[in-house]
């Protein structure tokens, strides 16, 4: 601010604090609810102070239990499924789009433009549009209820390819020429020059794609019928039984908190790279 106006400073702070409270409050309530018994939650108004059943609730959720109105599958297993699919999707997307951007930018081959536009057009086809044919193919290949079925149809990414393409276009031609004179072939150039320079873009993309993969709901819902292959976001929904049965809200809340932790961790750990990757212009 050019002018120093104390009132504006205070106003800014108030607005920000209000914002934080509005966003953080539901998370707080969820956490508090996960530390109490189902009975305490249902007796309105629920206490806003954490209860004493933290360890008990979380172990029950993670290990699964034998009785319950909704799904009683162990959350631990579901977290594992989510983790594996999110990692495979994120890493798979990055590898494939790095290679396809490399091909499009650095090689001149007969159908280059056709390939480019084909990739571009897939942007018009989100998962929901192509879901029936994809399901048929996956089912026919016997990939239902497998990790492959959960991840492979989601791996190709046009946006990631374009991100890397734009980045590769900013690499100066002389770098390629100097590497050529030094004797580096195409894959050597890719490994020694492009990959190290793309590190921040890759980190930024990893964060985004991991969260995308973690939060996948529609596709896993179709492709899995076996409880042991549910990702955790589906697990949360299934724990809430419809009808008049009493839900164990404390365990549902515990599962929700557990589901939020890995993406939050990834963002926190990679945030340094994430910001750098979006604004980095070092050459």
């Amino acid at each position: 601010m050019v002018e120093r106006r104390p009132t504006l400073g205070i106003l800014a702070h108030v607005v920000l604090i209000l914002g934080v409270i509005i966003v953080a409050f539901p998370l707080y309530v969820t956490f508090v609810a996960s530390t109490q018994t189902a009975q305490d939650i249902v007796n309105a108004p629920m206490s806003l102070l954490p209860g004493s059943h933290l360890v008990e609730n979380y172990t029950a959720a993670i290990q699964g239990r034998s009785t319950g109105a909704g799904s009683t599958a162990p959350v631990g297993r579901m977290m594992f499924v989510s983790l594996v699919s999110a990692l495979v999707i994120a890493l798979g997307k990055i590898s494939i789009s790095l290679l396809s951007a490399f091909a499009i930018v650095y090689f001149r081959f007969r159908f280059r433009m056709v390939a480019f536009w084909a990739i571009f057009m897939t942007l018009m086809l989100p998962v929901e549009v192509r879901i029936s044919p994809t399901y048929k193919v996956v089912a026919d290949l016997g990939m239902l209820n497998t990790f492959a079925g959960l991840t492979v149809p989601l791996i190709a990414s046009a946006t990631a390819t374009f991100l890397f393409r734009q980045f590769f276009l900013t690499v100066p031609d002389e770098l390629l020429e100097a590497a050529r004179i030094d004797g580096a072939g195409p894959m050597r150039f890719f490994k020694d020059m492009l990959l190290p320079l793309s590190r921040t873009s890759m980190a930024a993309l990893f964060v985004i794609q991991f969260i995308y993969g973690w939060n996948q709901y529609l596709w896993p819902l179709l492709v899995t019928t076996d409880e042991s292959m549910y990702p955790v976001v589906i697990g949360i929904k299934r724990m809430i039984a419809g009808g008049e049965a009493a839900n164990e809200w404390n365990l549902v809340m515990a599962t929700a908190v557990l589901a939020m932790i890995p993406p939050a961790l990834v963002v926190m750990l990679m945030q340094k790279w994430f910001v750098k990757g979006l604004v980095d212009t070092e050459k």
Partner: protein
Amino acid sequence: MGSISIRNVTKQYGLPGKGTPVLHGIDAEIADGEFIVIVGPSGCGKSTLLRMVAGLEEISGGQIAISGKVVNDVEPSERDIAMVFQNYALYPHMSVFDNMAYGLKIAGVPKAEIQQRVDKAAGILQLGALLQRRPRELSGGQRQRVAMGRAIVRQPQVFLFDEPLSNLDAKLRAQTRIEIRKLHAELGVTSLFVTHDQVEAMTLAQRMIVMNAGSVEQIGSPEAVYARPATTFVAGFIGSPPMNLLRGRAEGATFHLGGQVLPLTHRAPRDGDIVLGLRPEHASLGESVGWPLQVELLEMLGAERLVHGKLGGAEFTLRLDGTLTPPAEGHTVPLQWSREHLHWFDAETGARIEG
């Protein structure tokens, strides 16, 4: 060993027959150990020619041979050359040491030898203290030296320089010019140096290739090119301030310029339309007799003074020593010259006429 042979080399962009030709039949023979400067204005094709020697551009026609071996279809890394780029082209994510070692690493040179070669090059270029730094932590001059170090460690038969001094400030340019000369004296490797700056060309070259619009205008030592330019282009390009070129008509022992009849001390080599060339530093002020120069303005440069004026309606520049009394603006002063400093060129082709 490190000789380069360029025979009738042509280059065009686009499909054969329909493309844009940029080089029209370049011929040059370069002996081992020579320092050759390719000089010309922007767009004349000098960088294209260099890149064709390097292998970074396809050769449309003709042949290029390095050390007797035709390299038209040979990959750049197989030609035993090293190149220094205008923008340095250093690998930004590697240290100075790794930048210099990269080519050797790919070639499979053993680690101990890599260390030894890099240290030696770093010693020659005074980069010892900077070996672990990244390129972004270096100044422009340091980066250029690292680029040269990268070329030196390859121990190639030919060095190729693509306007390496253009990105440096004037003082650094002068310093680096001298460093390059010393380097050549010490290593004796054949070098091809491309520049648009005729001062760099004159000071660095053992022989120059002057290019214009895709053709070679003249090849010769700096002295030869300066004293006997082969065309009006070379005459006007080499030398600063440029040679005065006067278009007029010769008749016997007189030169007709813009209505004025100027006497010559001898017959012109041929009668008719002709171009007369005289360098600013080869003309002087006479006592009373001489060609009438109408002084328009003076430029004081310290050690010398430039007198700009009109001779027979044409622009003429005269260079005077800074200690002499300058003529006053608006006055007409007599211009003197001697016969051996007159250059004659054909009015249509611009080619030199002897006589």
